[in-house]
């Protein structure tokens, strides 16, 4: 069953620039999709349509069969988005309050909010920092907090925009383990990146974007060798003709 269905999606920005150009894409429930491409290729613009942060100039985006334009709040409940800059996603004064921010917006009962908050903190390993102020967290912890904030809203699809940018090795490793763990737990995952090395071993599908279009779409093994044409570095294992291996292993 397709959880995301995009038909002929185009988006033109207010300055006249064409961000997306006739995108057709379906994503099945439980899929792990990596979207790669050079800066400005339209990756983030595409993701923002899934979360109803941008609306199509033409075409449609359907989440679980319902157009995002008809019910943006529903789309935001089903598709949780983790932004590239965690600092601007964290809006409260303590870790616990920030995780509770989304469920509070959904007008849930206080008991349910507390339950979801504790669960999300446990899953992301932040329970020990529940009362800490976000600005004292490390980069990796902030990224995990952003994930926890989205998880507390119990989305079916998780969308990560450049999740490894500005992270050191332990931070990257932690975030990668979170993403793969969430996929194993049955969630549909979409990750944008221009660095395939870290994530591709876990993906079942690779999309390459170029100038607002999907230039390649398929199983990573089949299309990975040509990615450098699109401004994306070919992973080491592929250049060396080795097997795909998980980055932290």
């Amino acid at each position, binding site marked *: 069953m397709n959880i995301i269905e995009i038909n002929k999606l185009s988006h033109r920005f207010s300055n006249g620039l064409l961000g997306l150009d006739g995108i057709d894409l379906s994503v099945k429930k439980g899929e792990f999709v990596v979207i790669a491409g050079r800066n400005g290729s339209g990756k983030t613009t595409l993701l923002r349509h899934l979360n109803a942060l941008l609306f199509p100039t033409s075409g449609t985006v359907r989440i679980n069969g319902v157009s995002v334009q008809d019910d943006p709040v529903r789309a*935001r409940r089903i598709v949780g988005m983790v932004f590239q800059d965690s600092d601007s996603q964290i809006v409260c004064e303590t870790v616990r309050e920030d995780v509770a921010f989304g469920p509070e917006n959904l007008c849930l009962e206080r008991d349910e909010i507390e339950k979801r908050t504790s669960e999300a903190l446990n899953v992301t390993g932040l329970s020990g920092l529940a009362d800490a102020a976000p*600005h004292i967290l490390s980069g990796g912890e902030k990224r995990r907090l952003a994930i926890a*904030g989205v998880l507390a809203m119990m989305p079916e699809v998780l969308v990560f925009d450049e999740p490894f940018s500005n992270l050191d090795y332990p931070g990257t490793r932690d975030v990668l383990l979170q993403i793969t763990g969430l996929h194993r737990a049955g969630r549909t995952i979409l990750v944008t990146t221009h660095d395939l090395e870290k994530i591709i071993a876990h993906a079942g599908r690779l999309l390459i974007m170029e100038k607002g279009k999907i230039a390649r779409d398929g199983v990573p093994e089949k299309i990975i060798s040509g990615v450098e044409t699109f401004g994306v570095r070919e992973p080491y294992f592929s250049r060396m003709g080795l097997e795909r291996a998980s980055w932290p292993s």
Partner: protein
Amino acid sequence: MAELTAFSYRTGFSIVHSLDARFKLLLLVIIGASGLKASPAGLLLLFVLVLSGLIHAGIRLQDLFEELRFFLCFLLFVIAIRAFSADGTGLIEVYGISLSAGGLKEGLLVCLRLLLIALSGLLFVATTRMLEIKAAIEWILKPFPFVSGSRISTMTGLMMRFIPVILEQAKETSDAQKARCIENRKNPLYRMVKFAIPLLGRTFDNAGRIAIAMEARCYSDIRTGYKLSSKKNDWMVLFVVILICMAIVAYL
């Protein structure tokens, strides 16, 4: 990593921590107003009351002094200005300007009142989670039509959350300019403009990103708020503080 600001919440289990935020706000107003009416002896008693609260809440006096050092310098400056500019009996004369006893007394009184308000505010912020402060603001603004309590409380929360971030960015901008020898430019206006433009640009960009991130998490004015509830303790503390303040204003 940013440092904690002076006025930030500190976890604790004192009586002050356990009080309802609305009561704490009311107590803040009562103590502040009594300070304005009180004589020097009464003011000292109020000081003792607030300092006891701070110590009971687990705030070390040494930290307090450290955090308020610039404010204390400002108060000393106010006392000096007041003492040297007021008319009255001169105590000593420095370069033809006389230090007036009346001015010194007045300056001390003004500064003690300001310090009392600052310490009470610090006690309130250090013992009240932002969540409770926001809920109290929302509750206070409820009777006012055309004022969105929820929006104002969210803005207050965001302001508190982003003060350390903006301070960190200001330091980064300043360091980056120092690295390019901005100190060689003697014109303060030029330096200020070169500092303010990138900092304001970044701050506005961040504000835009925050708004998008909040939208992505379904933010609206209608949301589950924090539930405040008053207890017997709150009423008892309020009653005792009102009695003390009334006695200070009436008899001292």
